């Protein structure tokens, strides 16, 4: 486990020691779970061997490094383990506890050495004594408790990671910065290139450079990724210890340890996850007696599962315990004065459940050592939302509780809205914004009383602040309406915030701001957009605090009634963007299709072959509504994207985001429209996304010129390393492997080496270029092309296409 280095002689003693310490600590972390798993299944020879090897290596290295205490501890543990390996002794819980004790002590000692503190002078003899306690003593303790308290099923088997090297994090950060610089330089170059007359040769070289930079950025971002395993490492041990302490038996399942997420994100999720698991064991899973009485198996089940879903990591923690008693929650919050009995009576089950996120509430009857110490689910939720995550509860009283955490794949990129206030731009996480309205919207009413501003939106009253006031900025006079955003902070109640305008929707690369800036409490970080002007990321909860907004559950009943009414009619609502067409009509388009809104230079629009297009980011993008002549210099454009194609939709103005019924109130399929929806008493036409994308040219304009090359032998090194780059350089769009869903365009060309694959591809209905490794054809029937005959290869691909 701990690799010995042949080059030790060349390292200094200090480096040697450091190496030993960090490797020991890492192995310890990874092993904690293994020991518990081994306890559950003592016959598991692989795990026993892994643990034995650890002690053996520690013993070996520390003799050399002159660390006598390490040596003594590991020697004792090794002795016991070798007895077990020889079958002279069985790994009963007491022995396992003792082994764990030794591992803990080694961890403490390593920690002390690492920070250069004096070694904690505790008596190691006690631990060693516990280890060598005669088996019969241990039996006394384990009577009636033959099974191990925790059974661990970890999918993916024992650990055998890929080969790795250790790198300082600072080096990776430097690399990241270097790549960011490169991207900025590339953007500037691209701007400069656009200013001069087009030179296809130069454009081509620039495209190649862009691809390289983009690839490099992807790869470097991957170095920040870490397996979720690290997040899971501490859980088995914790579950085991807690289970023993509380006399509960738990069947723990960990799944999805090979999912990868951002290193920093792992750090941020550890605490919430630990807290939830503790809660689950302490409050969720009942004692064996209670479970028996309830007709459940004595052993409680706890399942922690991670998976990737789009650009999110989903971590689900499911137990089959008692679930949350919502009646008690309501009772407690009424007692605490947070809720009137009247309002409580009107609350729905989900709303009652959400009370668990109120500060200072717990369903635990008494404070135990494990949880219920005032650090509650409110803190867990705050922590999860701080990193742009979402927490959801699925409660089945008496049956169990599933808590789902959804966190973004990386801490550093979040979807955000760019808002303008006091003549400056700010970013706010998209997840924090519930709704955006203009202050001339009829459903909105802003009133003032005693200096306080109240925004009433559809009969729900929100505290209202103006961003300029909170930040102490001048409020410039503006001609158009101001935008009012309903912001949901992590811990508090939603509030309304006025800004000059909401400008844009972008993926933002967030970086930490300096402690000085963070000390204001209203910023969560900063970002550097392409224009090179740093922008601050607002912290919703911080703003509410800074404005000293009251944090009381208010008038949710009205909203709930409204929701109930909606639910009765069974109308599913989706978020939609309300915009004004250049021809003046107001229309709606489903928000999820819109990647972002941006102002595009009208000169970039053009027409070719009867189709309107616009040059964006160096590509030609089709224009969805066919417009290419405008009476203004800059035109607002919606950037749309389905799963693979993009389009641009120029509009006169973007109005706001509203909720529209998923099925229009009046269905009338006509051209680009799917019907009419009534929003706030106004009849609005709904744009039909299906028709919109269906009307686009079949392939994007650039792609049609060159077409796709499908490389059937995706696993083949030559194909990946030599053929694919050649084709990319020649301007072809290259796809490695045949599409799984077998959707092949007749324009596509399949390249393969194998005659069988060639036939298969021909059956799929596309054209095939077969390659061979030898310069000569096998026979007169051989239609393949020598793979290094570039001219013939290119001609074949081009010819196939014509």
């Amino acid at each position: 486990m701990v690799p010995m280095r042949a080059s030790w002689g060349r390292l200094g003693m200090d480096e040697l020691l450091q190496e030993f310490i960090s490797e020991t600590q890492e192995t310890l972390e990874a092993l904690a779970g293994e020991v518990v798993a081994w306890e559950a299944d003592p016959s598991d020879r692989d795990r026993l061997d892994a643990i034995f090897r650890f002690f053996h290596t520690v013993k070996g290295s520390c003799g050399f490094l002159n660390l006598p205490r390490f040596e003594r501890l590991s020697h004792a543990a090794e002795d016991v383990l070798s007895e077990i390996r020889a079958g002279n002794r069985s790994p009963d819980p007491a022995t396992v506890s003792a082994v764990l004790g030794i591992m803990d002590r080694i961890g403490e000692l390593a920690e002390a050495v690492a920070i250069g503190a004096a070694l904690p002078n505790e008596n190691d003899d006690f631990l060693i004594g516990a280890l060598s306690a005669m088996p019969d003593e241990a039996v006394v303790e384990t009577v009636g408790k033959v099974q191990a308290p925790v059974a661990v099923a970890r999918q993916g088997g024992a650990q055998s990671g890929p080969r790795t090297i250790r790198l300082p994090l600072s080096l990776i950060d430097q690399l990241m910065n270097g790549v960011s610089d490169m991207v900025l330089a590339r953007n500037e170059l691209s701007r400069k290139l656009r200013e001069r007359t087009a030179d296809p040769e130069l454009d081509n070289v620039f495209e190649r450079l862009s691809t390289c930079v983009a690839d490099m950025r992807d790869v470097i971002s991957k170095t920040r990724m870490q397996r979720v395993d690290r997040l899971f490492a501490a859980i088995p041990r914790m579950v085991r210890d807690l289970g023993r302490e509380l006399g509960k038996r738990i069947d723990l399942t960990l799944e999805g340890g090979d999912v990868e997420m951002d290193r920093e994100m792992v750090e941020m999720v550890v605490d919430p996850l630990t807290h939830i698991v503790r809660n689950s064991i302490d409050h969720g899973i009942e004692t064996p007696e209670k479970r028996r009485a309830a007709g459940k198996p004595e052993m409680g089940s706890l399942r922690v599962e991670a998976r990737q879903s789009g650009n999110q990591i989903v971590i689900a923690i499911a137990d089959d315990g008692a679930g949350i008693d919502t009646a008690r929650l309501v009772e407690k919050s009424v007692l605490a004065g947070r809720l009137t009995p009247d309002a409580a009576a009107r609350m729905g089950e989900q709303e009652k459940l959400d009370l668990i996120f109120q500060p200072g509430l717990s369903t635990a009857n008494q404070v135990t050592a494990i949880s219920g110490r005032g650090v509650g689910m409110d803190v867990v939720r705050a922590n999860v939302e701080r990193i742009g995550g979402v927490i959801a509860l699925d409660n089945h009283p008496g049956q169990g509780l599933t808590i789902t955490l959804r966190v973004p794949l990386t801490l550093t990129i979040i979807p955000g809205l760019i808002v303008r206030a006091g003549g400056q731009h700010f970013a706010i996480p998209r997840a924090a914004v519930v709704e955006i309205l203009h202050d001339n919207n009829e459903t909105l009413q802003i009133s003032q009383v005693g200096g306080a501003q109240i925004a009433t939106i559809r009969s729900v009253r929100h505290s209202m602040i103006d961003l300029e006031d909170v930040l102490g900025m001048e409020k410039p006079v503006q001609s158009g309406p101001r935008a009012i955003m309903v912001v949901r902070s992590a811990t508090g109640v939603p509030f309304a915030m006025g800004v000059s305008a909401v400008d844009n929707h972008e993926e933002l690369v967030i970086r930490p701001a300096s402690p000085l800036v963070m000390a204001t409490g209203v910023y969560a970080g900063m970002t550097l957009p392409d224009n090179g002007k740093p922008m601050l990321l607002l912290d919703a909860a911080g703003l509410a605090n800074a404005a000293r907004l009251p944090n009381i559950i208010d008038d949710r009943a009205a909203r709930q009634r409204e929701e109930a009414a909606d639910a009765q009619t069974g109308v599913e609502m989706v978020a939609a963007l309300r915009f004004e067409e250049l021809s003046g009509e107001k229309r709606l388009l489903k928000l999820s299709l819109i990647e972002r809104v941006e102002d595009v230079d009208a000169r970039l629009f053009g027409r070719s072959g009867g189709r309107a297009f616009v040059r964006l980011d160096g590509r030609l993008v089709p224009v969805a509504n066919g417009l290419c002549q405008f009476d203004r210099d800059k035109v607002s454009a919606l950037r749309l994207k389905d799963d693979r194609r993009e389009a641009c939709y120029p509009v006169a103005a973007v109005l706001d985001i509203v909720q529209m019924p998923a099925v229009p109130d009046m269905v009338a399929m006509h051209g680009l429209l799917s019907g009419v929806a009534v929003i706030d008493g106004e009849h609005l036409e709904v744009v039909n996304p299906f028709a919109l994308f269906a009307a686009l040219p079949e392939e994007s304009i650039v792609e049609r010129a060159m077409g796709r090359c499908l490389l059937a032998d995706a696993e083949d090194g030559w194909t990946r390393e030599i053929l694919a780059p050649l084709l990319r350089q020649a301007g072809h769009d290259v796809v490695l492997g045949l599409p799984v869903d077998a959707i092949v365009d007749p324009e596509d060309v399949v390249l393969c080496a194998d005659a069988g694959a060639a036939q298969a591809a021909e059956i799929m209905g596309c054209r095939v270029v077969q390659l061979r490794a030898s310069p000569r054809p096998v026979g007169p029937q051989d239609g393949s092309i020598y793979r290094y005959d570039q001219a013939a290869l290119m001609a074949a691909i081009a010819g196939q296409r014509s």
Partner: protein
Amino acid sequence: MDQLYLLATLADTRIAVDACEVEAVVRLTDISPVPGMGAHVAGLSALRSRVLTIIDVAALIHGRPTPPERRSLAIIANISGHSYGLMVDGVSDICRVPEGELPLRGQLGPAWTPYARALVEHEGHPWLLVSLAAFIEGGAVAQAA
């Protein structure tokens, strides 16, 4: 004791900074203000792909923010993992001072006491040796809190 020092002027005072603390000196371009901060934080500025927090040191010393047209140079420093730019009026020299640091003499103005460490003698003038980290950790954070 052949230490390198950066000699600069700041708030009408001659100061010296240990060259180890200095990463670079740049001419300030765009500064995006950080609303809600005291006057001593002039704002954020981008240096290639890094974002610097720009400290108006003069505001820290005598409480008056430097007007935007007088903002010229900033000393770039990395202090506990974050990049800062500390505004100075001018930079005169980087040189070795054979005598090294001399103890402080005379009654130092109270505004300077938290930041000054010693004196450095150069070309017959005393220069106040200040610590950049002290401006951030001592003064600025305390004022922000």
